[in-house]
Structure formats: C-alpha cells, structure tokens
C-alpha cells in the first residue's frame, strides 16, 4: 500500500459515505471530515513537491494487452490539492444551512453530495493516470461525473448539461482519435513509448495527434471556439457545486494538456512546429487561442445579467491566462500559468460561495434585482471584494501575482500583441467585476431585502477561509511558487527562481511583501488623513441628490441595467453571437443530414438501394 492507495481509498470511502449518508442531516459533516482526511492523505505525499519523483499506486491492471497504471508526481499533487480543497470547502458549505434549504426547496441533497464526491474521486483518478489509456479513462470519468453534478438541479440546467456532454463527448472522441493515432504508431499507450514516437514523428504526422488531443482537452478548458457550453453549465449547477466546478473542473483540461504538450511532445517541439504553409508555429496558434479565450468570454461576461453566469464566463476567460502562460514555456510564464490555477480556484470558489450566499438569502442572482446588500451581508461582501480583486488581478491579491508573471513572460518573450490581449482581458474583467459587486452589494438596498441577515457561519466560514488564502498567497506568493517550482522540475520546464514575496530578477523583480506593505501603509495614511477631518454623520440611503426630487422607498434609485452602454454600443456587434452562430450552423447542418438520412430510411421502394448498391459494387469489381 502506497500513500496514493490510501488517498484513492479515502476518496472511495468518501463516495461510499456520500452514498450511504448523503441524505442525512449529519452526512455533510461526516463528508467534510473525510475530505479533510483525503487532504491529510495528500499531505503524506507532500514530499513530491521537493524532488522530481513519482509515487505509484499498487493498483494496476493488464487488459486487452495494455497495462493500466496510476501514479502521482508533483503536478498531480498540485492539482489534487486544489481538487480536494475545493471538495472540502464545497461540502463544508453544503453541510450546514445551505443544504437544508436546498433540500427544503426540493433539491436532491444526497445526489449533490454523491456527485461532488464522485467528481473528486474521478479527478484524483485522472490526475494519477500513468499512461494514455488511464488518462482517457480518467478523462471520461471526470466528464461524466461533472455531467451528473450539472444535471442534478433539473430545469434549465438540463439543456446546459446536455450541451456540455455533447461537447465533452466530442472532445473525448477527438482525444480517442489522437490516442489511436499514437497507438497506431507504437502499439502501446505508455507515456515513454508515446513520448518516443512523438519525438520522432515528422511535422506533418505530429500535427494530427497534437491537434486532436489539444482540441479534445481544450473542450474541457473551454478554449475558443469550444467554450459555449461552459458558462451555462456551471452557472446552473447548485451553489457549492458551481463553486467546485468553477474552481477546478475545467482545469483538468490544463492538466492533460500539460501532460501532452510538455511531458510528451515537449514544449520545444511545439515551439518549433510550424503551421503548414505559414510562418507561425504551433505555439503561436495555442497562444492566440488562449488570448482569444481571454478576451471574448471576458467581454461576454461583461454583459451577463446573472451573477453566476458572469462568474462562469470569467472562469472561461481566466483559463486563457493559464494556457497563455504555459505555452510561453519560460520559467516565469509557466509558473504564472500554473499558479493561476491555484489562484483562480481560490477566488472563484470564494466568489461563487458569496453569490450562493446571496441567492440563499434573497432567492435571486439577477443583477437587476439586487443591490445595497453590503449593509446586510458584510462578510459575504468582504469575500466578494477579495474575490473580485483577485479575479481582476489587482494587487494585493494572489491573482495579481500570477498574471504579473504571465505579463512579464510575455514581455520577455517579446509578444506585444499577446501582452495587449492579456491586458485587455484584465481591463474587461475589472469592468465586469465592478458591475458584479456594484449591482449586488452597493447602491440602493431594495425594500424586500430590508430584513435579511448575513448568511450563517457554515457558509461564511468557507468563503472567509478562501479570502484569507487569496490574500495570504497574494502577500506571500512564494508559498505557492515552491510547489510550482517542484512541478517545473518534474515536467521538464525551466524552474522559477522565487522568493517568499515573489521573484528576484535582474530585469525587474517583484516583492509582494513590499508592495502590499506599502499599499497598506498608504491606506493607513489615507485613513489617518481622512479621519483627521471633520466628524461625519450617517444619512439614510434615500437622502440623496436627485435633482431636487425627493426619494421614497418605492423609487428604484439604482443604476444596474445595461451597465456599460457606451462600450456595448461600440463593441457589442463585434462579438455578439459569433460563436453561437457557428454552433447553431453545425446543429442545423446535422439536422438537415439527419432529416435526409431519415428520408433515406423512409423510401417507398427500399429494394432500390440494394439494386443500386449491387450494380455499383459489381461495376467496381469489374473495373
């Protein structure tokens, strides 16, 4: 029994407990403990981050002549850490009042627990894949587990989940095709064999598997133009489920891409690999896909009117930073990309938790039906504030550090356009998250929300924990960067030279300890200055400038709808529906084909086909 066995067994145990006790009121608490135990199991393997080593599971099969093995390395460990933590916090969140209300509203709490536990288990299995076949199996398990999580809410989530599973199956089949091509060359699914063959393949032959695998894994990552499924699917998942999915689910695609692009093909090869008949390389293509994945979903998020949708769209956009940093391939960029996985998971989960808390209290996530909640739910507000600062990538939160690393890498690699694209994404995010927090927590408190209270502790605790993590890892990014450095050493990337506060470099270093320190000192001075002024007195929110008009409680005096009209007038037509058109075109085409094949099976004289086929085959035989 290796530590990995313990981990997988613990995860399995969690699933079993969820199956047995998921419907009990104490089930959530027990599950929280088992997730904590999983985290403990993972910590047994913490040594992985220090040296490039693997821990193999004693579980292995030989089937159809292929051996299936599982093992963990630093990369798996890092992703597993995020996965289990997300599971832990989501379950903790679910375990208390939220779950009770969910059940009271007719939700299937048992299924939610089971689905999250299954998701964690399948992700841990995927992360442990020791060859291409187990990678694919894990991949499928993850896809279907998240399908279960997405679909359990019923209602509008069903459409979204079906769309997801269609995309996911498309992706899985592309992966299978890619694996098949590799298998066709090697007759084996092991990583070394695959790496060997991928190294020796000619450019033209390498493209097909590479493209297929990237497309397949890209679906899960929601890379453009395969991103349409994600936002709705995540947003319609019940609160903690959405947080879990938003935090880690689509990062599995990144994990697999790292395995393929970096461990198997080698980033050097990707950088060299030219796109046929052009002067750009595969790396450029990937980088630009990542850049567009940053821009388009971010600006789509900007126009959402549902908080969960908005966050989910941002989740897509942030995935672009991860890929962008990674394909830069230098120490900074890849560190930034990898670190962003952790950072994104933390603030995204905090944001979803906060939104779920608001939904829990108010019953809506419609940005046009909220406002002024900061006075009633200050802790949720705080979590959201920390979260949006992280999401927008502003100091002092952790999102800033990872994005900074990506920017620096882009600058050093001399990619001005990609750099601009990344910045455009960040700016769009700032606009969008301000809209989020403004429409929900700032401005006028609605009459019907006059009497609501802060969410209970079982809900605020997870988000505050996450807020602390977001802040602390922003202050001391070295905590995360040490894991990143371990990963970089394991997968064969240049290793980042980090310090506790950031990194030291001759070409411009970053020390978050100083930056954050100065920032807070500045705030302190500002506060001193401010409070040295005259005494303030608090007025009612309706005591407001209204052009001489007197406001009363029934007047909605809050600007929320169509928040950025000027911008929308300008850029709205540029991207609206462009990808949805693509999708519906495929769909209509399929429908047309389907209709005609049905027509084929409806013919009056079916023997016609037999006759024609016989004649054609005989003719072919003769010629």
């Amino acid at each position, binding site marked *: 029994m290796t530590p990995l066995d313990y981990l997988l067994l613990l995860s399995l145990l969690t699933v079993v407990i969820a199956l047995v006790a998921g419907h009990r009121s104490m089930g959530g608490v027990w599950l929280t403990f088992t997730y904590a135990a999983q985290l403990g199991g993972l910590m047994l393997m913490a040594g992985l981050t220090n040296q490039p080593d693997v821990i193999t599971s004693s579980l292995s099969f030989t089937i159809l002549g292929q051996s299936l093995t599982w093992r963990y390395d630093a990369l798996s460990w890092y992703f597993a850490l995020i996965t289990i933590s997300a599971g832990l916090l989501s379950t903790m969140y679910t375990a208390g009042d939220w779950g009770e209300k969910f059940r009271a509203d007719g939700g299937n709490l048992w299924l939610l627990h089971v689905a999250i536990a299954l998701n964690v288990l399948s992700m841990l299995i995927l992360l442990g894949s020791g060859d291409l076949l187990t990678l694919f199996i894990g991949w499928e398990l993850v896809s279907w587990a998240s399908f279960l999580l997405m679909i359990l809410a019923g209602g*509008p989530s069903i*459409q*979204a989940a*079906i*769309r997801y599973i*269609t995309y996911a199956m498309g992706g899985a089949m592309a992966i299978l095709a890619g694996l098949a091509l590799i298998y066709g060359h090697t007759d084996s699914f092991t990583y070394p064999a695959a790496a060997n063959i991928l190294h020796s393949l000619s450019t033209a032959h390498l493209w097909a598997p590479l493209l297929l695998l990237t497309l397949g894994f890209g679906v899960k990552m929601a890379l453009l133009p395969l991103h*349409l*499924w994600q*936002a*709705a699917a995540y947003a319609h998942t019940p609160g903690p489920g959405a947080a879990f999915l938003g935090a880690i689910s689509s990062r599995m695609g990144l994990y697999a891409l790292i395995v393929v692009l970096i461990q198997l093909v080698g980033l050097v090869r990707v950088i060299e690999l030219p796109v046929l008949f052009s002067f750009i390389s595969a790396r450029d293509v990937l980088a630009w896909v990542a850049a567009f994945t940053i821009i388009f979903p971010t600006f*789509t998020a900007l*126009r*959402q*009117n549902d908080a969960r949708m908005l966050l989910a769209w941002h989740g897509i956009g942030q995935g672009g930073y991860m890929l962008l940093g990674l394909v830069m391939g230098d120490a900074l960029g890849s560190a930034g990309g990898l670190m962003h996985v952790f950072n994104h998971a933390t603030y995204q989960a905090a944001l979803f938790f906060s939104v779920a808390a608001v939904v829990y209290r108010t019953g809506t996530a419609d940005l*046009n*039906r909220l406002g002024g909640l900061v006075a009633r739910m200050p802790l949720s507000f705080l979590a959201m504030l920390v979260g949006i600062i992280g999401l927008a990538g502003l100091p002092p939160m952790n999102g800033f550090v990872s994005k900074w690393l990506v920017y620096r890498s882009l600058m050093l690699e001399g990619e001005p356009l990609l750099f601009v694209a990344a910045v455009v994404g960040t700016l769009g995010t700032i606009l969008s998250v301000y809209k989020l927090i403004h429409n929900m927590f700032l401005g006028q408190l*609605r*009459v019907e929300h006059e009497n609501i209270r802060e969410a209970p502790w079982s809900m605020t605790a997870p988000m505050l924990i996450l807020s602390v993590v977001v802040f602390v890892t922003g202050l001391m990014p070295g905590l995360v960067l040490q894991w990143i450095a371990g990963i970089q050493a394991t997968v064969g990337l240049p290793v980042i030279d980090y310090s506790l506060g950031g990194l030291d470099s001759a070409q411009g270093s970053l020390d978050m300890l100083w930056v954050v320190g100065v920032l807070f000192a500045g705030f302190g001075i500002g506060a001193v200055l401010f409070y040295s002024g005259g005494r303030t007195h608090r007025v009612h929110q309706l005591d407001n400038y209204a052009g001489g008009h007197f406001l009363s409680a*029934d*007047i*909605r*005096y*809050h*600007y*929320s*709808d*169509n928040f950025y009209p000027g911008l*929308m007038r300008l850029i*709205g037509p540029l991207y*609206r*529906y462009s*990808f*949805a058109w693509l*999708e*519906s075109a495929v*769909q209509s085409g399929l*429908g047309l084909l389907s209709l005609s094949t049905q027509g084929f099976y*409806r013919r*009056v*004289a079916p*023997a*016609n086909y037999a*006759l024609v086929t016989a004649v054609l085959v005989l003719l072919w035989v003769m010629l």
Partner: protein
Amino acid sequence: MTLFGLEITLDLILYTGAFGLIVIGAAGIVLAHHLFRVILALAIAEAGANLLLVLSGYRWDAIAPILSGSESAAPMVDPVPQAMVLTAIVIGVGVQALAVGLAMQVKKTYGTLDMSAIRQRLEADIAGTAGIATTGSQDAPLGERPLPPADAVPVTPGSSAR
C-alpha cells in the same frame, strides 16, 4: 449462329433467360406500385435465380442423375444443384404464401395495395401511435443561446421595484 456480330450460343441464351428473369423481377420489385405485382416480381426473380442455380450443374451431353440399371458410364448432370433448386423453390413457395397472407392483411388494415399509399399510411400510423407529428416537424434546437440579447427589452431602472 451469330446475331449482330455476337455469337449466339446455348449458354448465352440460357444465361440471358436466367438473368433476364432476374432483371424483370428486380425491375418489377423496384418499379411496381401494386403490392401484388411486387410479390409476383419477387417470384419471377426467384425463378431466375433458381434457373441460374440449375444451370450451374449442367453438363454437355449428360443424362438426368437417375440410375436406371447398371450402365452408370454415361455422364450425368450434377445432382446437387437440382436438389438445391428443389429446396429453393419450396422456400420460395413458403415465402410467397406468407407474402400473400401479409398482403391480404395489409389490404384489410389500410384498404389499399398501392405501395406509396401503404408507405404513407404506415408513416402516419406509426407517428399516430407514438403521438408525434408526422414529418417536417423540427425538434426544438438544442440548448439556449448563450448570450441573452442585451438590448432586447430595456428595463428602466425602478420599474422592477414597483
């Protein structure tokens, strides 16, 4: 004997007969509108196939495969195809009888033996039993459009509060 430069031999004639029957049958199956004619065409085509089968056992100057006494020196035609044809014919009879029975049932059910009418009635019947629209109806497109139109219904601030 030659015709149009083509030497007319026995095998040409016989094969023409066999394949001709098959062609007639095939054309009938494909083209006929009346169910009974289709069944007849099927019978014709089967006859062609049987003829072809018999021909495969033919030998020049051979006698029927019946031992009539001691002189077994004379070459006999192949008995195996004959046996096969016997079987095939009976099979054909069975199938055709069943076909006629089915045709009668069809006539009873739909009141017509016209192939395309049957096809239409059948389609309507299946659809009717299942409770769905017959043809041309479209499924609802899969999934929602991901982007709600921003400027579809301008909600004025305050309107929702009242």
